[in-house]
C-alpha cells in the first residue's frame, strides 16, 4: 500500500537458506547474593533491608495489617489512607510534598481489606528525610477537618468513576458471591459510607490500628546494611504501642458451585471470573501447583491463552493466577470477551480446567513453565522497586530473602508427576465457582443451556 513495488506475502516468508534452528541456551549465572538485615525493632516492627545499589535510589514498603469488621471500617480506612499524608503536627500538605520533592521522593498510601501499605522512594541521599516524613505521618498525622472533608469528597467522585469500571464491578460481584458479607469483600467502599465518615472516626482508627507491632518495613536500594537498622530505629522509635496491628479475620474456604450471571445491561463485553481454593507459598506442594497454574493460564504460552485467544480469538486477555490472603490462597481465572462468544469462551475455559487434570502437562510443557517460573522471578527482582514489592509480598507470609533465593532450586526439583497431581487435585472444574458479568438478556440463553450457571445479583 505504500511502496510501488513490493514482494508478495508468500515471497517475504521464504528465503534461499530455508528455516533455521533455534539456538540452544547458554550457561546461566545465578543472581548475586545481596547483603541484608532482617530484624525486629524495639517497637515490634519487622525491618527487612536489602542493599542493592544499582541506581542511587531507595525503595520503601511499609505494610500494616489493617483488618476491621465495623460497618464503616472500609470507608474510614479509605479516608484515612487518602488523608494520612495531608498534614501532621509539624508539616502541612504542601510542606510534606516540598520536602519529598526536593529529595526526588514520593510517599503513597493504599489500603485494602487486609492491610494499609505506604510505598515510597527517593534519592538515596534523601533517606533520612524520607524516614522523617514517614515517622511524622505515622505518629502525628493530624487529619484536620477540612482536609478530611475535601479528601472524602474527592474519594466519593473517584468511587463513582471506579464503580463504572467493568473490572471493578466483576471483582466485587465475585467476592460477594464467594465470601458473602466477610470484610474481604469491601475492597471498594460505598460512596454513602464515605460521606458518613467523620474526622474523629479517622483519628480514632489511626490511634487504634496504625501500629508497628506485626507490621513490616522493607527497604531496598543504595543503603548501608550496617547502619540501616540504627537509622530506622532512631527515625521510627517514637512510633510505638503495646498492642499489635489487627489482622483480617480468616477467609472461609472456597467451595465449588454454580457460576452467577450478574446482569450489566447493555455491556458490549463480558467478564468471566472463576475462583477455587489453592495452596499458600509455605506449602511443600506450592512449587508443583505454581507450575500447574502456569501451564493452565499463568503465562502467554499457556493452554488457556493458546485456546481462547490465539486459536479462537475470543479474548484479548485471559489469565489465571494466585491470590494470597493471610495464610491461605486462591487461584483465579479471568477473561474478558465479546458477548457473542462469552458462552463459548466459558465452555473452553472449563474444558481446559478438566483437561489439565486428565491430560496432564507433557514434559515439554513442564520444562517450559519451569524455565519461565525461574526466569521471570530473576527479571522481576532485578530492579529495586521489583525486589522491594516482591519481598513485601513475601513478608506477609512470614517469608523473606531466603525463600526468594531458594525458590529457583525448589522449582527446578519439581517432578512432572507432582505437577500432574497438583493439577488433578486443584484444577478440577468442580472445585471452581465464580461469576460472569455482562448483558444478561444476550448471555442467559446460552449460558444457562451450558449448565452450572444461575442468574442474579451476588450475595442474595
Amino acid at each position, binding site marked *: *500500500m*505504500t*511502496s510501488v513495488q513490493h514482494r*508478495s*506475502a508468500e515471497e*517475504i*516468508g*521464504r*528465503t534461499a*537458506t530455508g*528455516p*533455521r534452528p*533455534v539456538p540452544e541456551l*547458554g550457561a*546461566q*549465572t545465578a*543472581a*548475586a547474593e545481596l547483603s541484608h538485615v532482617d530484624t525486629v525493632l524495639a517497637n515490634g516492627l519487622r525491618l527487612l533491608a536489602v542493599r542493592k545499589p*544499582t*541506581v542511587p*535510589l531507595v525503595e520503601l514498603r511499609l505494610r500494616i495489617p489493617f483488618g476491621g469488621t465495623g460497618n464503616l471500617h472500609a470507608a474510614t480506612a479509605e479516608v484515612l489512607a487518602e488523608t494520612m499524608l*495531608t498534614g501532621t503536627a509539624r508539616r502541612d*500538605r*504542601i510542606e*510534606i*510534598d*516540598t520536602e519529598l*520533592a*526536593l529529595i*526526588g521522593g514520593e510517599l503513597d498510601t493504599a489500603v485494602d481489606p487486609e492491610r494499609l501499605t505506604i510505598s515510597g522512594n*527517593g*534519592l538515596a541521599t534523601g533517606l533520612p528525610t524520607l524516614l522523617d516524613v514517614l515517622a511524622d505521618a505515622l505518629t502525628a498525622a493530624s487529619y484536620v477537618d477540612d482536609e478530611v472533608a475535601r479528601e472524602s*469528597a474527592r474519594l466519593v467522585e*473517584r468511587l463513582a*468513576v471506579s464503580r*463504572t469500571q467493568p473490572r471493578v464491578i466483576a471483582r466485587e460481584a465475585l467476592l460477594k458471591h464467594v465470601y458473602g458479607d466477610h470484610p474481604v469483600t469491601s475492597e471498594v467502599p460505598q460512596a454513602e459510607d464515605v460521606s458518613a465518615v467523620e474526622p474523629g472516626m479517622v483519628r480514632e482508627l489511626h490511634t487504634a490500628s496504625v501500629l508497628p507491632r506485626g507490621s513490616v518495613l522493607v527497604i531496598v536500594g543504595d543503603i548501608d546494611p550496617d547502619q540501616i537498622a540504627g537509622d530506622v530505629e532512631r527515625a521510627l522509635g517514637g512510633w510505638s504501642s503495646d498492642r499489635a496491628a489487627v489482622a483480617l479475620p480468616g477467609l472461609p474456604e472456597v467451595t465449588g458451585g454454580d457460576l452467577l450471571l450478574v446482569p450489566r445491561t447493555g*455491556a*458490549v*463485553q463480558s467478564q468471566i471470573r472463576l475462583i477455587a481454593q489453592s495452596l499458600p507459598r509455605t506449602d511443600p506442594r506450592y512449587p508443583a501447583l505454581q507450575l500447574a497454574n502456569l501451564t493452565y493460564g499463568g*503465562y*502467554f*504460552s499457556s493452554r488457556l491463552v*493458546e485456546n481462547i485467544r*490465539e486459536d479462537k*480469538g475470543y*479474548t*484479548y486477555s485471559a489469565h489465571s493466577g494466585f491470590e494470597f490472603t493471610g495464610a491461605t490462597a486462591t487461584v483465579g481465572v479471568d477473561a*474478558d*470477551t465479546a458477548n457473542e462468544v462469552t458462552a463459548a469462551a466459558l465452555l473452553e475455559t472449563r474444558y481446559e480446567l478438566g483437561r489439565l487434570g486428565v491430560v496432564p502437562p507433557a514434559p515439554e510443557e513442564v*520444562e*517450559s513453565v519451569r*524455565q*519461565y517460573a*525461574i*526466569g*521471570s522471578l530473576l*527479571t522481576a527482582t*532485578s*530492579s529495586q*522497586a521489583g525486589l522491594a514489592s516482591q519481598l513485601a509480598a513475601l513478608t506477609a507470609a512470614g517469608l523473606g530473602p531466603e525463600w526468594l533465593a531458594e525458590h529457583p532450586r525448589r522449582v527446578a526439583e519439581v517432578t512432572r508427576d507432582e505437577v500432574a497431581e497438583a493439577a488433578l487435585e486443584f484444577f478440577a472444574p468442580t472445585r471452581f465457582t465464580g461469576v460472569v458479568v455482562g448483558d444478561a438478556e444476550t448471555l442467559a440463553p446460552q449460558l444457562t443451556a451450558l449448565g452450572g450457571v444461575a442468574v442474579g445479583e451476588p450475595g442474595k
Partner: protein
Amino acid sequence: MAEISRTSRFTLDNGLRVVLAPDPTAPVVGVAVHYDVGFRSEPEGRTGFAHLFEHLMFQGSESLEKLAHFKIVQSSGGTFNGSTHPDYTDYYEVLPSAALERALFLEADRMRAPKLTRENLANQIDVVKEEIRLNVLNRPYGGFPWILLPPVLYQTFPNAHNGYGDFTDLEQASLDDCAAFFDTYYSPANAVLTIAGDFEPDRARELIDKHFGDVPHRPAPPKRSFAEPPPSGDVRGHHTDPHAPLPALAVGYRMPDPVGELDAYLANLVLAGVLTDGDGSRLQQRLVHREPLVTDIGAGAGLFGPFEARDPDTFSITAIHSPDVTAERVLTAVDEELEKLAATPPDAQELAKVTARWSAGLHAEHDRLMSRTLSLGAFELLYGDPSLVYRLPDRMAAVTGEDVAAAAKALRPDSRAVLLVEPEGGAK
C-alpha cells in the same frame, strides 16, 4: 551508575543500527528492535494498521510456527511484548542472560522472513478488536485523551486519526497491505537493535553478525514530515462517553520540536511538573485543594509520555471535574495560572522540586531493564544518541525559570484545542 551508563553503537552493512549497553549487576538481558514506523505513517483508509501489523509480527516466520515465538521466549524464562507509538514500533524481550542468542535469533528471524497469512490476519483483527473493546469502548474515559484529542488539535490525517483504528478500516486490511507495509518499513536500514544488561560486548557482536548479518538490505523509506500549522483559534470538540460518571476535559497545545528544539521541549516538561506534579504544584494546589473544582488534573508532553514522537508533539492538560463546575471555570483557572507563570518565573526551589523528581524518576526507569532497553533504542531512533538518556537529568536541571515562563507564555488560549467529554445522559 557508571557501569550502566556505558553505551556503544555501530551499524551493520545492511543498515541496521545497534546499541550495546552492558551491565552485569543482574543475570538478565534485554533485547529490543525499534522500527521507524508508527501509526502516524499509516495510509488513509487503514487506520490502526501499524498496530495490527505489530500483532502479526508475533505470528510465525519461515523458521517458526505460529505461537512458537511466545513459547521460545517464555520457555527460556523470558517475557516479551511489542507496542506501537506515533513514530515507531518496538518489539522486545527480557530474559535470563543465558537466552541472549535466542532473543537475537527471534528478532532476526522475523526481520528476515515473517510468515504473513490470511488466517493469522483474520485472527489478529479479531484480537485487536477485543483489545479496543477492552481499552476503549467498554470503559469510562476510553481513548481519553490520546484518541479523542488529536482530531481536535490537528487537521492532517497522520496527526489527527485514531491510531487504534476504526473497525471498518481494520476489517478491510488485506494480505497485500501487510506485504507492502513490511517491505516499505521493516527493513534493517529502518531499524535499531538494542541489547542492555548482562552480556559480553564482543560475544554479542559475533552473535549479531551471525543472526542479523545476512538480513538483506532494503533502503529505508524517505523521512516524511508531519508538519502542519498550529490551530488558529480556540478549537472545540465534544465527545459523549456512555460509561463516564463525571465530565472531563483535555486541552491540547502544540509544543517545541522534541528533536530540533530539545531544550525548549524540556522546559515544557518542567512546566508540566510545576503545574501538576505533587500537592504543592500550581494546578493541584489551586484546583484540587484550594478551590476544589476538579477531581484529578494532569499535564504532560506527548499523548503517551515524552520522547515518543518527532514533531509535531502535543502538550496536554487533562481534568475530570464535577458536573456542578463548568468547563469554562476550569479553563479560566488554567489560563490564569499560565499567565502568572509567564509573568513571574518560578523560583529556584520550585524548579529543584521538579528536577529532583525527574532525576529520581529517570534513575528508577533505568533500573528496570525493560524500560532501559526501550528508552536507549528510542533515543537512538529519534535522536541518533542513546546516551542522551543519561544526560537528560543535567539538561533538565539547566532549565531556568525564564525558560519555564517562556514555555507557559507559548500555551496560548487563542491557539489550542479543547476536548469536552460529557457523560451520556448527564452525570449520575
